[in-house]
């Protein structure tokens, strides 16, 4: 068994969030009835001509600036010729030799906290194709061209990734970035963000690249990871049993968790690229680029660095909290509402309870049922020790489901922490009296029973005893060999 190295490159297609299509004035809104957003240009009627959408170019340049790439002063649209029913012209207007964005880089934090720089070979503008639908049509397909002509930014990475996890981390980072830049809504279910993965293997230490297979149209992070894992295993097994990897296009079947060869693309396509004579070279000057640069928001890495520095967060936590502009904004709003020095508390709650609730109910942060002001209200009650952290979790759940502020719930459910030392002592005394055996065992050395007493006091106080005070008082009262 040899040691294998995996080489992965990703081609990401991000639908640009323009209002109209890249070469026509049709709307790009998702979900319209079939062919109601396809005009003569989109339908490739005889005699029509493309005219380039300025905002698509601005968005491409914005991306280029965000990945420190060279923005081409002159770029050219080329025709990629092939026949497919969802491609009305019989060619796709894309970019070939002179893309609008050339080499750039993106820093990606991996699971273990290591930061890896992934190269971006290029990013270019092109138009999306329509859709083929098969349900309800016997032996036929129905073509909907609403999507035909939607602008895409194709982002091609260098083959720098060495595992499925690295690939997913990169894909997530790109996803975060395009949403930060507001150039793509990143909605994978709607197809706004799609990924093709190029996967090959080679013996460790070998410099030459192995033959690669391309897995097309992966539209979730999970599928990307599983598809790549399957493909790696497939290729290794194939080679180890004496076979050869064929350069081909494959599809991932998520039901069967396997990749399979695409029948219709078995023959190598000769795309016969040539510069589109209907479009002139796109010239981008300094003025244009500077105008776009002014629209750049604080980028994810910049925000993460700021969080780490200003709020003393770990790189990892800062990374999680800056995964989206909305999450970062929420977090900052909460920090701002708390007294200085409680950023970590805010971080823990946003990454913990809040994120769990959002995930559980499949809600995005903009529609969170607890807004920053409300969360501030809750966290302040922890800070001022009105309630314990543990009780706060229950309050949060109640806030989430009832939509009420923290104070109202604390009041209504009588959840105030007990901080009266006398009251706590009283409960401790009662518990000690009720459990003489455990008391004796503890005093004779069974330290672990400290937890038992904590639990009993908490039970008796419905969890409202202030934990710190409880600990201190319990220690005193139990005395002897007790320690917490």
């Amino acid at each position, binding site marked *: 068994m040899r040691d294998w190295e995996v080489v992965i490159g990703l081609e990401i297609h991000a639908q640009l969030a323009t209002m109209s299509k890249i070469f026509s004035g049709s709307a790009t809104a998702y979900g319209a009835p079939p062919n109601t957003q396809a005009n*003569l240009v989109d*339908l*490739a*009627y*005889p*005699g*029509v*001509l*493309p*005219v*380039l959408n300025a905002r698509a170019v601005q968005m491409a340049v914005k991306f280029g600036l965000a990945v420190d790439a060279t923005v081409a002063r002159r770029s050219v649209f080329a*025709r990629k*010729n092939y*026949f497919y*029913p969802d491609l*009305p*012209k*019989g*060619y796709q207007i894309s970019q070939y030799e002179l893309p609008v964005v050339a080499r750039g880089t993106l820093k990606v934090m991996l699971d273990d906290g290591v930061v890896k720089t992934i190269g971006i070979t290029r990013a270019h503008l092109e138009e999306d194709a329509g859709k083929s639908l098969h349900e309800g049509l016997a032996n036929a397909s129905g*073509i909907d061209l609403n999507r035909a002509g939607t602008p895409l930014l194709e982002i091609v990475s260098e083959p720098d990734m060495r595992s499925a996890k690295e690939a997913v981390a990169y894909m997530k980072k790109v996803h975060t970035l395009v949403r930060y830049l507001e150039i793509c809504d990143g909605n994978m279910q709607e197809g706004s963000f799609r990924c093709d993965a190029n996967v090959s293997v080679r013996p460790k230490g070998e410099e030459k690249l192995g033959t690669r297979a391309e897995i097309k149209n992966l539209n979730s992070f999970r599928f990307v990871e599983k598809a790549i894992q399957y493909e790696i295993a497939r290729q290794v097994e194939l080679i180890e049993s004496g076979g050869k990897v064929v350069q081909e296009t494959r599809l991932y079947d998520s039901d069967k968790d396997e990749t399979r060869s695409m029948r219709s693309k078995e023959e190598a396509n*000769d795309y*016969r690229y*040539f510069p589109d*004579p*209907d*479009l*002139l070279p796109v010239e981008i000057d300094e003025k244009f680029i500077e105008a776009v640069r002014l629209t750049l928001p604080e980028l994810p890495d910049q925000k993460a660095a700021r969080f780490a520095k200003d709020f003393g967060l770990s790189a990892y936590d800062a990374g999680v909290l800056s995964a989206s502009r909305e999450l970062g904004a929420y977090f900052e709003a909460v920090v701002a509402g708390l007294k200085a020095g409680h950023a970590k508390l805010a971080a823990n709650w946003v990454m913990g309870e809040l994120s769990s609730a959002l995930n559980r109910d499949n809600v995005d942060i903009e529609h969170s049922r607890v807004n920053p002001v409300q969360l501030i209200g809750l966290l302040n009650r922890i800070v001022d020790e009105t309630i314990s952290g543990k009780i706060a979790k229950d309050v949060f759940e109640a806030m989430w489901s009832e939509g009420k502020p923290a104070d109202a719930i604390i009041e209504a459910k009588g959840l105030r922490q007990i901080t009266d030392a006398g009251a706590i002592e009283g409960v401790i005394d009662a518990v000690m009296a009720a459990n003489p055996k455990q008391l004796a065992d503890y005093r004779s050395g069974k330290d672990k029973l400290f937890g038992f007493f904590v639990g009993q006091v908490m039970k008796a106080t419905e969890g409202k005893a202030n934990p710190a005070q409880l600990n201190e008082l319990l220690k005193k009262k139990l005395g002897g060999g007790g320690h917490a």
Partner: protein
Amino acid sequence: MHNLFIGELAERLKKRQISSVELTRHFLSRIERLNPALNAFITLTAEQALADAAAADARLQAGERGPLLGIPLIHKDIFCTDGVKTSCGSRMLDNFVAPYDATVVARFKAAGTVMLGKSNMDEFAMGSSNETSYYGPVKNPWDISKVPGGSSGGSAAATAARLAPFATGTDTGGSIRQPAALTGVTGLKPTYGRVSRYGMIAFASSLDQAGVFARSAADAAAALQIMAGFDARDSTSVDVPVPDYSKDLGSPLKGLKIGLLREFFDGLEPRNAALIEDALNIYTGLGAETREVSLPHLPLSVPTYYVVAPAECSSNLSRFDGVRFGYRCENPKDLLDLYKRSRGEGFGAEVKRRIMTGTYVLSAGYFDAYYLKAQKARRLITNDFRSAFEKVDLVISPTTPTPAFDIGAKMNDPVLMYLNDIYTIGANLAGLPGVSVPCGFVDDLPMGLQLIGPHFGEAKLLNAAHQYQQATDWHRHAPRGYE
């Protein structure tokens, strides 16, 4: 009436000596009588024409004036006309009714013209003889056994036969100038980008340009005035002001430098050469100076064109696939069959030849040797013209090597057919404006003289053509039976 020029017709309309409806009826009846022998039309729009004429009359009655208001015209069937069949001379679009107007069509409509119908043409504008049309060949009114030239053969023949005062055409490698020469009319191809291509079914996008057939340079100027101008829907449309083309028609030619292209005169047939000599004498008589200029790369223009044009058209015609409009084969057994038979049956032989040539020259392994090479040759040819225009104002040549040839004579040899374009193609490759005017007869068939100008030099071109037509009367000759 049908021998009057546009200016004269406009005058009579203005003075209400005739109405647009009368004028239209006159041409419609001529068409009914004379077109069957010529086959110059694919679609006649008589009813709509009369309605448009009545509308024009109302505008005239209300005091409105316009150089083309109420004037009938014919559109080459390559221009999309809303609600009217637009076939491009092909079975592929035999059932196609355009849902919109080409910009050229819309501009003429706004100017108040009256469309008599759509003219016959070589299929998808590919041809130099109008013999590849699905609707049968067009005959030359000077001799119906001869071709009228192509691809705008129908518009040329109809204009020569006085079936309309003027007609639109398109010119990719000579498709206006060459048929104009063979039918004894004036044909103008403007500078690339001068006239919008939106709505003009594309053949070779970097070469196609809309233009006009008329019986005089002055008429062509009036038509160009309406056609020319920036169109935001065409990315290759140039935003350059449109001059008043009629204003400078009368400018004297004193000091105009005319270049004789040496490459054109080598091996020119003696009778053709003699006509050009006569024309040059006329020009020197008018005060112009002639001198020789050389375009050393010009001999490359035909092979260059026959790489570039097929390459572009092979891609432009991919949209004809039987899916959203146009011809669809019967009972396709699968998707591949749908494509192959719809296209195989919908397109004629010349179109298929060019699509395949284009596919070949763009294909992997051949791209550099053919397409890229041709694009380099194109630059060399364009540079040659640029240098020439530093020394002269216009260049002159015959429009065609010979007068009209027999129908069927060249159909079996595509290369022989391609060599018809030898004088005209250079202007398309370089995007230059060109005009052909009648300059005499050889074997009782008309011959044309071609003038090529620098970019956006249409005014100078039309002025030179107009002055020539003031000094000669070749352009007034009508074919026998059509006077």
